[in-house]
């Protein structure tokens, strides 16, 4: 202000103006520092609250999901344990699978047969299962698929069903019949069948999904 008025100040007057400027500057700094510190604390507190809110929502969702599943604990435990025991979470034992089917075929003595157990390969999850993981932001476990193709000639219907039952049992997991074509033989001796089975396994134990769960 004084400079704007082009006034020559004496030393004491200049000192007064300087003190005023220092005072104002110090007040600005102090006020700014107070507000900045408080704003920083506020930001941190709000961020912590928001993070906690997110965490509690996830924890609540997990707990409620578990709580909902616990409504019939006995049946569910039995089902889970049965699936584990059946091998739903373990790799395919291709040799045992092939031997099991071969043993059944040998016992039934068809006119001829051929079977092939393919290599285990990855497969995308069913949409609903994939959505379960997507909703939780968790990496899904790999779904492994092993395919068995069987061609057999000269078996009757029940014998064919027995062979397929043996294939289900020897697969040691979730095995399902994907396709099967049965034709009546022209010579009248039973049926010819070409079937394809798939074994599914969720490899939960050798991935990080279970660790990532809350």
């Amino acid at each position, binding site marked *: 202000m004084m400079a704007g008025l082009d006034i020559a*100040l004496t030393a004491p007057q200049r000192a007064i103006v300087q003190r005023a400027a220092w005072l104002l500057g110090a*007040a600005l700094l102090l006020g700014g520092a107070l507000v900045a510190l408080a704003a920083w604390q506020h930001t941190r507190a709000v961020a912590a609250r928001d993070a906690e809110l997110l965490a509690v929502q996830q924890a609540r969702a*997990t707990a409620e999901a578990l709580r909902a599943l616990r409504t019939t604990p006995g049946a569910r435990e039995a089902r*889970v344990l049965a699936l584990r025991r059946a091998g739903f979470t373990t790799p395919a034992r291709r040799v045992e699978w092939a031997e099991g089917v071969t043993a059944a075929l040998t016992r039934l003595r068809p006119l001829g047969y051929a079977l092939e157990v393919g290599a285990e390969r990855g497969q995308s999850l069913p949409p609903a299962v994939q959505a379960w993981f997507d909703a939780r932001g968790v990496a899904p476990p790999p779904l492994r698929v092993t395919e068995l193709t069987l061609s057999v000639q000269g078996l009757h219907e029940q014998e064919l*069903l027995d062979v397929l039952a043996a294939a289900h049992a020897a697969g040691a997991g979730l095995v399902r019949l994907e*396709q099967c074509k*049965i034709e009546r033989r022209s010579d009248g001796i039973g049926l010819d069948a070409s079937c394809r089975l798939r074994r599914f396994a969720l490899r*939960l134990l050798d991935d990080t999904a279970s660790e990532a769960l809350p």
Partner: protein
Amino acid sequence: MPRYLRYLAANECRDWVASDAQLRSATLDGIGQSLVVVVDYADESYVPATLPALRGRDRRRLRARRLEREFPGALLTTLVTVRARAADGTVDAVMIAVGGGASLGEMLTELGARHALRAVYTPALLAALWVRLAGLRERRVLIVMPTPAGVRLVFVDGGQAALSRLTAPLAGGTTASEIARTVQYLQNMQRIERGVPLELWFWGVADQEAAEHVPGGDQTRLGRAPCVNGLPDPQRGGFAALLELAARRPSGPQLAPDTLRAGWLARRLQRAARWAAAAIVLLGGCAAAWLGWQASVATEAALALAAERQAYERESRDFEASLARQGLTPLEWQLLPEAAAQLQQGAVDLADAFAAAADGFGAVPDLQIAALEVRAGDPLADVDAGAAGAMTTEPAASPADASARLEADCLTQPFSAAAMQIDFGLAAGLGVRRRDAALRFVREAASRLGPWQGGPALRRLGSAESLVVAAGVDAAGDAAGAASQWSVCLRRTGAA
């Protein structure tokens, strides 16, 4: 901080200090004192002027330029507005200057350098200030007031000092003639109307004595300044009352330029800076307190949420521990049954397919199933679009053609439902009636196949075809063979 007052006249200098309720004589010493100066010199100049009504910086510049032109080089000048003329956009003003010589300028410069010189007044400016503070702005009055330098005649118009003269001390006849001369001058200058008596206020003069100095004739009349609460009474106190007013309530037009008032301006800046600093710190403190309160609210909410989260986590941990005791993981617990059910969707049971084929086709000896093919629904398919619409049952021109077309329609599309294709034919040599009965059996059996369903074409099986009766070995054999092979497609409804 005490406020000092210095009275300066041609041959007199007195100091006062305003403390508590009274003004007392004092010696101005030290430096940096708050100071008001009253100059009482004979050579005061009052020049009336008419100026355009301006505002802001233009107004300041115009006034400074007019003062500089009217009083070149003068140190103590000011310009006061007497009244505004709204009709022509001008104002009546009076330009005021006090000479006092170089010694006055040097003295004031030194005072301005050593002290916080707030204002320089004349007795006339103080008298006008009093009139304004008393709310008598509309009065035209000639004030007669003895001062240490003599008798001051002050014409106040519109609450501003429009004329001031310093005359000799009160003396019988002399003062009255000076008053008469002043009134005559004002009439000549058309500052007052002739024939209208001008009110005279004698300040600091006893009423009886004042009456002696009133000039004869009807040009003037004696009046009294009212007594105003909160203001010194100059009617009784005279010039001392104005000095007290100057010390206690300095305001309004004054004569000192900003160069002389630098000390006071610096002090005012300092005070403003203190208030601003206090306001900034206060506002900052309030803002910080509010933010801190908000932060504490957020922290409390976070703590409550954390407690809630810990409760949920504890519940989950307890449950996981119970699962771990059974050798299970939470993921297995949550996922395996549903995942297995999803993967089992669309699965097909061959025994079930055999049973359906037996019920629908094998129960009549005249029907012979040549082939049966089942295909499970694809658990990875998201859409089951057109599953029912694609069901096809058509008489085949030849089994190979039918098989090719139905392969595409029935078994190859990625539906989530299981499908079954049955190729069947009729026994050779059937008569028309047995042949129709066999096909009717299939049509009726289509509604009894349990979860397996055929389309509308299956329910019209045989009814949309020509009924052919042929004689002769070649003709009959060809016709029967061509019309006796069918492929039907069945789809499984509901979950597998």
